[in-house]
């Protein structure tokens, strides 16, 4: 992919947003490629972590947010562990995920956000997560009704599903915490 290296590209608003959200200085990256060398999902994605960082450096917003590697990242942290400059690449990817929320470029983004929201809704309402609440919420809201349904008999047979929600005592305080954070982050 060819892009012109202009001063404007290097100081894009997109790059500043990513740097602010992740707390990382992306000028530190000199494209050595160690993150991609260790990345377990690199063979399955179009854009390697190294290229993804380069895209952000050059302000290529659409390409970066559209890339499948944002959603195939398992957050394992191999890249973080190996980066010679100590860049927290997982937080850079977290920042990119946050920026996709309103855009939903590709299906991967929609599914992941549905999963995050189903998970956090469960935590917000009960203080703890139950697998049945999570899977139910995810399957209904994502439209993928049959996700992991095949596995349900195994889970039931081995008594692995926590069915009843375990509500914590101070759930009211927890809900105020969620609300306060939403206000601070202006969602």
């Amino acid at each position, binding site marked *: 992919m060819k892009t012109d290296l202009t001063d404007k590209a290097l100081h894009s608003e997109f790059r500043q947003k990513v740097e602010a959200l992740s707390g990382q200085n992306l000028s530190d990256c000199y494209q050595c490629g160690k993150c991609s060398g260790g990345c377990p999902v690199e063979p399955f994605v179009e854009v390697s972590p190294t290229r993804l960082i380069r895209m952000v450096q050059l302000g290529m917003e659409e390409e970066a947010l559209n890339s499948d590697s944002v959603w195939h990242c398992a957050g394992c*942290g191999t890249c973080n562990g190996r980066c010679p400059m100590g860049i927290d690449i*997982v937080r850079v990817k977290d920042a990119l995920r946050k920026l996709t929320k309103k855009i939903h470029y590709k299906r991967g983004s929609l599914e*992941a956000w549905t999963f995050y929201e189903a998970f956090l809704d469960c935590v917000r309402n009960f*203080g703890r997560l139950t697998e049945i609440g999570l899977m139910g919420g*995810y399957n209904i809201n994502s439209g993928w009704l049959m996700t992991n349904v095949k596995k349900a008999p195994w889970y039931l047979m081995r*008594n*692995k599903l*926590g069915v009843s929600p375990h509500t*914590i005592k101070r759930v009211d305080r927890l809900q105020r*915490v969620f609300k306060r954070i939403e206000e601070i982050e202006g969602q």
Partner: protein
Amino acid sequence: MKFAYYPGCSSEGSGAEYARASEAVLEALGVELEEIDDWVCCGATPAHATSHLLSIALPAISCASAEKQSLDILTCCACCHSRLKQVNQEVRDDPALRAKISEIIEEDYRGSLNILHVTEVLAREVGLEAIKARVRTPLKGLKVACYYGCLMSRMPEALMSDKSEYPMLLDNLMDAVGAEPLDWPYKTECCGAALTLTQTKTVIRLSADVLQMAKQNGADMLVVACPLCQANLDIYQAEAEKLKGERLSIPVVYFVQLMGLAMDLDPKRLCLDRLIVDPMPILAQKGFVHGAVYL
């Protein structure tokens, strides 16, 4: 020895066997646990992928509660451990963040505690010698591939001062109970983690690689210390077999279950019957369990 205990959400669902077996082993070795009062979910990936503040506030609520108990925190789940430890450190190092978080969670939180993973407590606080002395049936001849996954070995802030590319904590524990830990290359490969529901294919591909490598190295079982690794490696074995075109069928066992077995603890508390790939045939073949019939 006493700790504030953070069980984590999986202890009430898919990973209950891990929590129950850990509690049994810790009790047998004289470690006391006091459950953190009104603990909440650590937020895991969904919190840190969506909101930095939330990913700090959720663990902070539980840690602040433990601070009142004035006990260091012990947790079994590798994900909870990594979140709690990172948050504790971030808050301790940043006074501005400390003030902000304390205000958000309506409670004073200083980040003053140590956050320990159950493997650390067993290998370092209890000590390998004490464990060896408590073993009744050494697991002689059981070849185990110790699998650490990502969260126990990476994330610099959360490290357990073990080698990040070739950790040994689990291997040492397995050696202490008489099993034979293998030298194999996929100790810290990723299983796919929280992509289970959203990118199932990626999880199957990654888990299949780990399972196949364990098989090729002659492992009787995979030994894990993370509920998410266990779930991914255990539940997708049929798909992994299809992908690799070979029979895998490797039990994925929590390390505390094997420790409990070697220490002759009540099998009911070890919940070996809750695993999906049944470990009983191989355990019976090696003579560690007798006459057990499971599903």
